[in-house]
């Protein structure tokens, strides 16, 4: 952003002057005030695809299963236990005595209705891959259900503890997604008392929350406002009318961290991985296409100083990543070929490939212009002259699907799903966003994705990941992190999946 300098100046000015106004005690009225940056399109979690939506989803609704973010252990939530009765059928016993916020009782009918609604493509759930692995659900008795998958789908448990929430059957049938978005009803630790679409969401503690592994909520009220400008968010934090902001840029977070007596700054990694995608399949109109040559792709890998990017730009808990998946994900073996920064070697490889003077290429990005510019200068330094183009996400995606992008800086957040299939299988199985189209990689990934044997899955993900690294199909670079800033009155330890858990927040 061009204006970043002036904006930063204004906030620096604020920090330089001694603050005279004391922070208001929100603890007094038991209301936690939180800022969102983006306007959330619809509170109905099946009809939005943003981080803000995931945060509300986890507060308002429950899944059948819950994954403990600390231990990664799966625990029963709305289900108490589950077992695979055949390769494609999961039987779950449901928790009894759970009530929805509107007073309806939760039972097998709600699970059946929810699953059958979201799994039907015609109903238009926004993120199809969250739900399209399910064929249907059927009721066995009032508190037993069976969910059938389309194929063998080992990640089912992970999905059932993530994006698949249970909705009240009768209410949802009556109001539909837009009604649910305006007056959401779930079983979760917080119930929604006010929605101004895109602007404001007020939640209230669910006093009758069941004995869930999420824990019991303690803070009485959560008041969320959308404030698009991060500087305004910081100003509100200073004036005491906000208690929590997140996704704070590293430079601002550093300055806020210096004011220890007023704010707590916590940094935690997210599952998002930044990488360079190259047109190894030769789909773009570039002629000759240097990226078809493994030496050129290796040169790109050697040209990037990943440590410098992490230390100087991303900071915090970001790490260098060598795989097309996030290290905590199941199957994401880190034991793959690494390309340490070596610009001389990069130049030599380019010369060997027949480009002793380098070459010229378009270079695309859609976010984090500062990172993209740094990457671009690393490429320029070894002779890859980049014509840098910053596009809107949807525009770049469209171009990418047509195969018109020789090299681009991309990121992927895996939708917080802790399984390698959420990233590597998304991009290396000949889908429209696959820039490599390697049959061997696809076949190995298919074996891994379709097996119920964890050891076999690991083995084949490892094979695929090693091949991708050896062939230098991508240049994976780093994981992202986010800064959480809270007022001194709030106690919260963020988790590595960038889901704000209001239930785990307390007053100091």
């Amino acid at each position, binding site marked *: 952003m061009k*204006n970043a300098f002036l*904006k930063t100046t204004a906030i620096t000015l604020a920090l330089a*002057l001694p603050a005279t106004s004391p922070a208001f005690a929100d603890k007094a009225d038991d209301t936690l005030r939180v800022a969102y940056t983006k306007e959330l399109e619809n509170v109905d979690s099946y009809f939005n695809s943003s981080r803000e939506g995931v945060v509300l989803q986890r507060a308002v609704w429950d899944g059948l299963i819950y994954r403990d973010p600390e231990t990664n252990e799966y625990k029963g939530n709305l289900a108490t236990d589950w077992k695979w009765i055949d390769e494609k059928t999961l039987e779950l016993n449901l928790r009894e005595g759970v009530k929805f916020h509107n007073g309806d009782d939760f039972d097998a009918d709600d699970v059946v209705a929810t699953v059958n609604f979201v799994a039907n493509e015609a109903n238009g759930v926004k993120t199809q891959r969250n739900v399209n692995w399910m064929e249907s659900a059927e009721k066995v008795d009032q508190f037993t259900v069976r969910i059938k998958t389309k194929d063998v789908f080992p990640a089912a448990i992970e999905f059932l503890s993530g994006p698949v929430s249970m909705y009240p059957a009768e209410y949802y049938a009556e109001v539909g997604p837009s009604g649910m978005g305006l007056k959401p009803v779930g079983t979760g630790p917080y119930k929604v008392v006010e929605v101004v679409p895109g602007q404001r969401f007020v939640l209230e503690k669910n006093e009758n929350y069941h004995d869930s592994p999420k824990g019991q909520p303690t803070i009485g009220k959560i008041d969320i406002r959308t404030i*698009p400008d991060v500087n305004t968010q910081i100003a509100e934090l200073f004036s005491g*009318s906000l208690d929590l902001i997140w996704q704070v840029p590293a430079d601002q977070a550093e300055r806020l961290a210096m004011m220890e007596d007023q704010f707590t700054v916590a940094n935690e990694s997210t599952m998002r991985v930044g990488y360079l995608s190259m047109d190894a399949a030769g789909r773009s109109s570039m002629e000759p296409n240097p990226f078809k040559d493994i030496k050129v792709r290796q040169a790109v890998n050697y040209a990037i100083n990943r440590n410098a990017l992490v230390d100087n730009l991303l900071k915090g808990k970001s790490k260098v990543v060598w795989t097309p998946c996030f290290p905590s994900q199941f199957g994401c073996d880190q034991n793959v070929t690494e390309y340490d920064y070596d610009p001389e070697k990069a130049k030599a490889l380019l010369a060997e490939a027949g480009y002793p003077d380098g070459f010229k290429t378009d270079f695309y990005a859609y976010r984090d212009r500062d990172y993209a510019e740094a990457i671009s200068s690393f490429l320029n330094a070894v002779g890859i002259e980049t014509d840098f183009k910053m596009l809107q996400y949807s525009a770049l995606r469209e171009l990418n699907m047509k195969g018109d992008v020789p090299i681009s800086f991309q990121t992927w*957040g895996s939708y917080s799903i802790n399984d390698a299939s959420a990233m590597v299988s998304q991009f290396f199985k000949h889908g429209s966003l696959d820039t490599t189209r390697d049959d061997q990689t696809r076949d190995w990934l298919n074996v891994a994705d379709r097996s119920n044997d964890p050891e076999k899955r690991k083995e084949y993900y490892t094979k695929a990941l090693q091949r991708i690294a050896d062939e230098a199909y991508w240049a994976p670079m780093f994981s992202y992190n986010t800064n959480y800033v809270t007022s001194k009155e709030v106690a919260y330890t963020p988790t590595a999946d960038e889901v704000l858990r209001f239930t785990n927040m307390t007053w100091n």
Partner: protein
Amino acid sequence: MLPFILKRLGLAFLVALTVSFISFSLLFLSGDPAAALAGETASGEDIEAIRRVYGFDRPMLVQYFEWLFKALRGDFGESYYFKLPVSTLIGDRLSVTMTLGVCGTTFALLTAVPLGVVAAIRPNSIIDRIALFISVAGQAMPSFWFGLILIVVFGIKLGWLPPSGASTWRHFIMPTIVLGYYAMPAIMRLTRAGMLEVLNSDYIRTARAKGAGEGRVLFKHALRNAIIPVVSLAAVQMGFMLGGSIVVESVFALHGAGYLAWESIARNDLPTVQALILIFSMFYIIFTFLADVLNAWLDPRMRSS
């Protein structure tokens, strides 16, 4: 006067139609709405399905006329992003923007016109210099920066005003000042230039010669003539404030129509963008029309032209 008004009205209608058509075609060319709608995590098949469901695969003219006929009946369709009727969505946000636009224009006129008049009465005096300084500063200072400075001073340091939001009238004070200050310099300079020119004209000398009081000379004879271009300018500024207060709305988290338009463009939310463009251009058209009528009333010679 009536034929003049009717002629202007007909012209305004044609302009609105042209604007809607041009914007529709430009949006149509600008990107794939299906890809934007599908979101970050969708696959190619998801996008194809969305394209069929929303009818993006039909010819552009068919889509335009369908939209136009519905729009004429007040039905702007459903926002792709919010899944709510566009009219509900916009109605809600327009009130914020209109409040801001009216307050901003009033603030600009109430400060700029008196300053311009004073500067013209005593050209090159200290007052004129101060007025010049204020206007140059207003023109040069980016409004997001001015906004943040106000937030820092009045919102944080002094704690007099809420930094952001739109729930009470106190929330509108800082945005009004920022928006009004941005429009002020042009109005002030134009008032000053107009007054200077008029004050040197023969009829002012005549008015003074026949013994009219200075106040009467200034306000009845001079200002009424000097204000004519200012009225047109203020109308354009007002249109600008209603459609272009994006930065101010974003800094002060006001959730008005300008910010909605900006965000909707990035989200390829075509029905919302379309409706907003139509409404914004209607504002320009209505204000220009009102300014023409007002000028015709101020200056009878214009009615015949």
